[in-house]
């Protein structure tokens, strides 16, 4: 065998030993560095790994009508997601998953492929807001498809078909722009906030405060323990002043038309109904609005997103004659003015026509109101002059915001000499005053402004601030209109008040401008209006093309003095005020019928036996007697029966 000389060099073995020692010292240094020198840093990192603050989302407050019936609710919405940290072959299951969730299998596979390079803990979102049968599919396949999971979020459930859509508004994720504004500084990325309507105006009340759960999680984000919890503070319920019954009547009356309806309690300023048409379905925004859908809504010439009740600025037409009458009466001109209407009259060298070509003959103030004689009001305007007209119009709130608690109200325009110089650097021409006398020309108002002005006149000068939320039950800080109780008194001579309102009652009687709109047994006072969009000459040239049709107006209230309700209707393209009047009186009748405990005509059960529902999850109608069935709308009623209405002063007994 080999001899001693063949032995391996001792030196080299010893060198190897020192090499090993060096390796161990290096490793020991590594441990020392991590475990002793930097252990604090890594302990914090481990803690951060382990503990996750999971937000507990505060449910947004419900929105109720004035009687406590739910208008806007929340519903649990499930999203389907695919967990990628399981050992399953996702591609093999893709077909079954796609079938169950009604997705395209190739799209599911593409999605899986796109995520291939992403960290495994990141799930793939397959579908948002899945339907109950898709949810059932996931539940039934828990064992076969363990990688398929759901998460739940609460979403807003709005009434369908755009019912009350403009007033309620809708919610959305807070945008980058909003986060930069001071009033949104407390909000976080991903918060759901009101974007329009009441949802926006009362966002602070509705939103509530998210809680948080300090959870111990594992590397897959699964919770394996709980350290502590701060409960969420749910959003406040918001009670609107809206009466669903009246709203239904108003929605039905406006169906298929363009325009707006606003109904208000003139004593308090509580808005009872508000409709704007065309409308939109806010449920489309509750999940995610597609780009196409959004641009379609924004570019629609009829502007379905616009709340015409507070955002349409149009000439009031003949409804302005009531304001003219008050101004004329207060200035002691109107009550003694007598005009012979021959169908037209000449002022400042120009001929102004009356809408009745043959003329009204001898006209006093009363006839001028109920027959809507233009020549009378041309004459009155000439005598008053623009400054006095503007003074009374401004006192009645025209050309300024009403202060209603809805976002983006517009102010409209009430022209005056000062206004013209300021905006056009031009002197006021006396001829312009004549047009203003019948609510034409530069004057532009919103329906809610007109409503408020006529409401003040109907109340003998008591002018209220319109508002849509019942502030009772809301903490002080949440009331957005601090001045909602503010009452302004516009001086109106009581004799003038009775005279004018009596004349307005004759509008709906034979000889008035809207006799067909009258409702037997209900004492309605009102005024029609039809405002030209373009000059009559242009209209003649285009042979009454639909786009050039006139806007029909009607403002009416019942009973004629100290009324309970006032309704303003804007019927765009409605040609004549009497068509608007018919819409308005339907709403007024629905109100009176409800007060007299008659079933409202508009809230009858529909003829078809199809399922009637307002929001997707509300139950079928008529099962327990606590449902109101109205047109397409079904709304839960409170358990207690409706309080019997006390007869309002001036109410005409019926039957």
């Amino acid at each position, binding site marked *: 065998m080999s001899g001693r000389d063949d*032995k391996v060099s001792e030196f080299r073995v010893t060198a190897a030993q020192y090499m*090993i020692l060096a390796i*161990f010292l290096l490793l020991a240094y590594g441990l020392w*560095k991590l475990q002793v020198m930097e252990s604090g840093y890594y302990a914090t*990192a481990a*803690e951060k790994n*382990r503990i996750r603050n999971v937000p507990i989302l505060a449910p947004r407050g419900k929105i109720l009508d004035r009687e406590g019936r739910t208008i806007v609710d929340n519903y649990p919405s499930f999203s389907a997601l695919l967990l990628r940290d399981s050992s399953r072959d996702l591609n093999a299951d893709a077909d079954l998953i796609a079938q169950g969730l009604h997705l395209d299998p190739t799209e599911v596979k593409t999605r899986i492929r796109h995520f291939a390079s992403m960290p495994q803990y990141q799930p793939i979102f397959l579908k948002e807001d899945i339907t109950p049968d898709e949810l059932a599919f996931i539940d039934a396949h828990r064992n076969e498809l363990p990688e398929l999971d759901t998460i739940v979020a609460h979403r807003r459930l709005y009434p369908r078909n755009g019912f009350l859509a403009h007033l309620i508004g809708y919610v959305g994720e807070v945008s980058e722009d909003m986060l930069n504004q001071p009033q949104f500084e407390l909000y976080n990325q991903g918060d759901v906030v009101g974007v329009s309507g009441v949802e926006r105006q009362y966002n602070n009340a509705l939103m509530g405060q998210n809680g948080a759960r300090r959870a111990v999680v594992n*590397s897959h984000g699964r919770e394996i323990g709980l350290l502590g919890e701060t409960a969420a503070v749910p959003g406040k319920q918001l009670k609107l002043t809206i009466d669903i019954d009246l709203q239904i009547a108003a929605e039905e009356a406006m169906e298929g038309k363009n325009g707006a309806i606003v109904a208000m309690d003139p004593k308090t300023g509580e808005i009872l109904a508000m409709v704007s048409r065309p409308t939109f379905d806010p449920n489309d925004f509750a999940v995610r609005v597609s780009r196409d859908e959004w641009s379609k809504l924004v570019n629609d010439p009829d502007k379905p997103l616009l709340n015409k009740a507070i955002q349409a600025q149009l000439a009031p037409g003949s409804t302005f004659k009531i304001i003219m009458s008050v101004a004329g009466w207060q200035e002691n001109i109107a009550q003694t003015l007598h005009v012979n209407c021959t169908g037209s009259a000449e002022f400042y060298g120009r001929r102004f026509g009356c809408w009745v070509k043959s003329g009204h003959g001898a006209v006093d103030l009363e006839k001028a109101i109920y027959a809507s004689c233009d020549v009378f009001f041309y004459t009155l305007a000439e005598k008053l002059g623009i400054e006095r007209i503007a003074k009374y119009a401004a006192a009645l709130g025209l050309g300024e915001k009403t202060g209603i608690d809805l976002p983006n109200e517009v102010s409209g325009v009430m022209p005056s000499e000062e206004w013209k110089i300021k905006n056009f650097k031009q002197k006021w021409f006396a001829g312009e005053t004549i047009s203003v006398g019948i609510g034409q020309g530069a004057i532009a108002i919103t329906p809610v402004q007109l409503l408020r002005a006529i409401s003040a006149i109907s109340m003998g000068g008591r002018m209220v601030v319109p508002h849509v939320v019942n502030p009772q039950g809301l903490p002080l800080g949440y009331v957005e209109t601090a001045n909602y109780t503010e009452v302004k008194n516009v001086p109106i001579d009581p004799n003038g008040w009775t005279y004018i309102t009596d004349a307005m009652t004759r509008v709906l009687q034979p000889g008035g401008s809207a006799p067909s709109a009258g409702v037997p047994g209900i004492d309605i006072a009102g005024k029609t209006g039809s405002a030209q969009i373009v000059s009559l000459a242009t209209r003649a040239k285009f042979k009454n093309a639909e786009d050039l049709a006139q806007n029909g107006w009607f403002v009416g209230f019942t009973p004629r003095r100290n009324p309970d309700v006032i309704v303003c209707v804007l019927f765009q393209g409605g040609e004549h005020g009497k068509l608007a009047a018919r819409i308005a009186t339907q709403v007024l009748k629905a109100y009176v019928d409800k007060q007299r405990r008659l079933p409202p005509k508009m809230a009858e059960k529909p003829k078809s036996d199809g399922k009637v529902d307002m929001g997707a999850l509300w139950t079928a109608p008529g099962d327990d007697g606590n449902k109101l069935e109205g047109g397409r709308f079904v709304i839960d009623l409170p358990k207690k029966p409706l309080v019997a209405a006390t007869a309002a002063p001036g109410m005409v007994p019926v039957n």
Partner: protein
Amino acid sequence: MSRYVSFRDFDWLLLVFVLMICGLGVMEIHSATVHTKFAGSHIKQIYWVAAGVGMMFLISLVNYQALLDRIHWFYIAAVASLMGVLIFGQKYLGAKRWIKMPGGNHFQPSEWVKLILILAMAKFFTDLRNRELSWSDFMKAGAIVVIPMLLVLKQPDLGTALTYIPIAIMGVFLGGMQWRQGLLVAVLAGIGVGAVFFVPKVHVLKTYQKQRLTSFIDPELDPQGTGYQVEQSKIAVGSGGLWGGKGSQTHGAFLPVPQTDFIFAAFSEEHGFVGALGVLLLYFIVLMRLTQNAQTAPDRAGTFVVMGVVAVLSFHILVNVGMVVGFMPVTGIPLPLMSYGGSSVLFMFLALGMVMNVRMRRFVN
């Protein structure tokens, strides 16, 4: 020749230290897997250790001289089995490393090839008997290791392929490596590392291997990707502190494979610097005991065999613990004796059996 071979000359002290390390390993495997789908792995590990000890005794009885005389047949068999894996192997997680054995077990030939290589190197250098290594012999020694290494790289299994390198280096170093040859080895290593890190299109390495190697440079760049494992391992080790902690990294599954490749991180988290240093000390004692056995070996071949085992064991510890503390890239090399896994445990005990074999024959001449 084998007139007087007795288990009295068996290195019982070495076995005690080795079993202590195995015991800590079993304990940690239990702790890391108790609430996972791998629960019960520690029992299997005990079986593997028991089987390993049995095989160690068996192999110590076969005279290593007889094995060395037939080493060329073993070497051919080793290369053939690696080729067999490439042709008939089971594909699992994108790599062909296993051959399915009758009875449902899987056999990973690249592990026992290490043992063959240790013996082959020993045989090669014993036959040389030169104080200085000639260039042609240097090349031959390199070729003996490089051929199986390329086959393993093809599987691909970079980690195991790397473990063949220290066998070659230890061999040429003890076999009388000249300083120029040492320089060449250093330059080759430098080029290899450079190619991995700086040449973007090295087709030898798979994308995931490159990612593993590059992510190690700055793990925080990609905390949830490939650097994630290194970062989580460092957090586990660091949060263990001096005395150890509750082990949220291990039990919250933040630490990847805490029972195999990252078992040292799991142990360090639960037992702190003191515990981790204790384990390192045990390994150091085992290695020193092994080198002592190498020095008292009856012949040149015995020294080479034992030092080959030392080289493999040291390299495993360096790369595995180095990876756990963030000094080394993630290569998938387990910590011998502690990490869960049959192939790894059996290899270690077979290697120790060879060491015992040499030791028991130290007075044989």
